[in-house]
């Protein structure tokens, strides 16, 4: 990809302070988001997916490292440009019940940004645009929706309103933070398909944050997946490569746990048992590779000494952060 990335994260660290204890949430994140691509961030809860998403959406600053928007740091832009850049990155929240203000009607929620940024001229155009947006997110007939309050809509409908609100300012990138995890399963596919259509229609890039690898596989089949573990990216590459040939032991374990629709296939799957089910706390991240206490292919003296860096391993198309793999060794189950 030779295009100019929309957002570049170079060696980004982010930590939060809680009761005078520094909690490192993100460590050494290198990530580019290109125009019109689908990038999935996958990982367990607490691994820093949402924080990464918020940094991409410029809602949070990095503690260390560089974040470039359209090739420049936010501080290099003047006020007007900054506002424009900020609007190019929109966030769709996880909880559709909390992301819409209960005091406003849907028409008002969509109208405020349109009016504020002068996206429309006059009342008639404003109303036309609101109808258009509601039609785009399949909330039809729009006339029934505009005068309703959020509490009168279902979870799926609200999530569609929240996507429509993100579209009001013509963004180039949408960060969908677990956007369908709180929506009924029967409605999820509809919303995901709609997001795909919108991406084609408006040339959007979508950063899709999820803990569900099956969902990531479905949604980002044409795009990329970044697997995160305890604040680091452990594997990143094209979805098809990762699903067909997972490199990092953590990704392998995750994939082996994904149930398949075919029961025969699921039964044939060999689950990769982890050595421990306990996720280490962020305040006490293990030395070396953070995954080594749970890794079934742990090599003492190698994995617990130095921190692995993302690199292409021989035999794999994607980048992975695993020392034995990147040095060209075979993974041997621990204890044999």
């Amino acid at each position, binding site marked *: 990809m030779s295009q100019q990335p929309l957002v570049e994260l170079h060696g980004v660290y982010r930590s939060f302070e809680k009761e005078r204890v520094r909690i490192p949430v993100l460590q050494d994140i290198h990530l580019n988001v290109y125009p019109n691509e689908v990038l999935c961030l996958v990982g367990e809860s607490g691994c820093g997916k949402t924080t990464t998403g918020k940094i991409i959406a410029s809602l949070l600053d990095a503690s260390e490292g560089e974040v470039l928007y359209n090739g420049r740091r936010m501080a290099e832009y003047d006020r007007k440009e900054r506002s424009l850049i900020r609007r190019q990155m*929109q966030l769709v929240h996880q909880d559709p019940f909390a*992301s819409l203000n209960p005091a406003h009607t849907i*028409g008002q929620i969509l109208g405020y940004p349109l009016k504020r940024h002068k996206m429309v001229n006059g009342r008639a155009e404003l109303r036309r645009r609101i109808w258009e947006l509601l039609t785009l997110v399949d909330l039809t*007939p729009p006339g029934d929706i505009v005068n309703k309050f959020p509490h009168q809509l279902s979870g799926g409908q609200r999530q569609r309103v929240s996507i429509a609100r993100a579209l009001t300012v013509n963004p180039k990138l949408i960060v969908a933070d677990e956007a369908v995890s709180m929506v009924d399963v029967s409605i999820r596919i509809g919303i995901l398909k709609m997001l795909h259509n919108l991406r084609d229609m408006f040339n959007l890039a979508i950063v899709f944050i999820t803990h569900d690898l099956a969902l990531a596989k479905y949604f980002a089949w044409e795009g990329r997946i970044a697997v995160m573990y305890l604040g680091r990216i452990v594997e990143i590459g094209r979805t098809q490569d990762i699903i067909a040939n997972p490199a990092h032991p953590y990704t392998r374990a995750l994939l082996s746990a994904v149930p398949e629709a075919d029961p025969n296939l699921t039964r044939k799957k060999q689950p990769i048992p982890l050595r421990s089910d306990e996720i280490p706390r962020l305040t006490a991240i293990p030395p070396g590779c953070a995954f080594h206490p749970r890794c079934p292919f742990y090599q003492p003296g190698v994995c617990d000494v130095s921190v692995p860096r993302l690199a292409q391993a021989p035999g794999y198309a994607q980048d992975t952060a695993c020392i034995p793999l990147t040095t060209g060794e075979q993974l041997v189950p621990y204890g044999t």
Partner: protein
Amino acid sequence: MFETVATTTGLIIGFFCGLLPLGLGIKYQQIKPGIIGFVACLLSGFACGMWGGVPMIILSTSVVVSYIYVNRQDPFTSRQSLDEVDFEESTQEYIVRQMASLGRTIRAMSRGLLRNKGGFIGFLGIMFFVVMTVFGPLVIEYEGDIQMDRRQPGATTLLQPPSWEYPLGLDWWGRDIVSHIVYGGQNLIITSIQAGVMSTLIAVTLGSLAALLGGLVDQLISALSNFILTIPQFPLLLVLASILEFDNSFMLAVLLAVLSWPALMRAVRAQVLSLKERDYVEAAITLDLGLYHIIMREIFPNMISYIAINFIFAVRAAMYAIVGLVLLGMSPLTEPDWGIMIWNSRTQGAFYSAKGITWALAPIVAIALFQLSLILFTRSLEEIFNPRLRKGL
């Protein structure tokens, strides 16, 4: 406000204001809201002249319009597809649509008022006192001077227990207690409301500033409020009142407000701190809607019921403080006033005589009932202002 109380001019203004909603109601066959609008205009015009009639004409007409508008073709509520809809509208259509939306809100609010029984009783109580202080003077004459001619044969004082002629009896100077109850609420209620408004304004401004700006501003405001909270309020009020020697009740309201904002300020600060972390505020930041929009449109509407409830509590506390000051003789003693009635009855020994029992009790009961109405009314406020509880519109 009370200069224009209940005059014939006010009645005429109210009548002409009421003609608009009534006429609209008759023309579009919405007789009931039309008549209600007419009566509302008439009464508010009668009570406050232009200041009551003109706002009421807008409100009541909006309600009538909202009934009529339901049946009209509105591109915003139709089921047509995008190409069939004509989004152009004239200014007149726009005004009508806005009025209909205002009317719907008023209807939803009044429905919220009716939903809670206790709250509605409180509302009726408050209305009773308002009507009594505004319209009472039309019926009952105020007796300020001593009435020597009412002395009964053989009696040593003018004090009299209730009788058919004087339902609440006569006070030490032979004046009708009913007239003092009717006239005595005005000053007390207005001063309490003034104190409540000012206290709420200070608290909301400082509370939101502290929560939104944080850092040093937050620490300074919090420290100041903690400082004021630690001082015993009533003794301080007493000392200040005796030093300052008020000659008008507005200054008293200012003093009460200055001393009573910290508790509400802390509550508002906590609310804003919680509300500003909501997802929809974050969405407003990524949409770059600006700080003013975030405060006024995203945060404020969600705490308005909370502020209204606390405003009522502030009014209640101010009223107790004023009565307390009057009882101790630390406030301007201008009759008629419920507080001064208690003071007079106490100093003239009515507490110790069976004949004077109504003189002592009447103002106490009036104050207690008004306070009770306020407290009951707060129950309805949540239902009036919370859009989530508005159904069906």
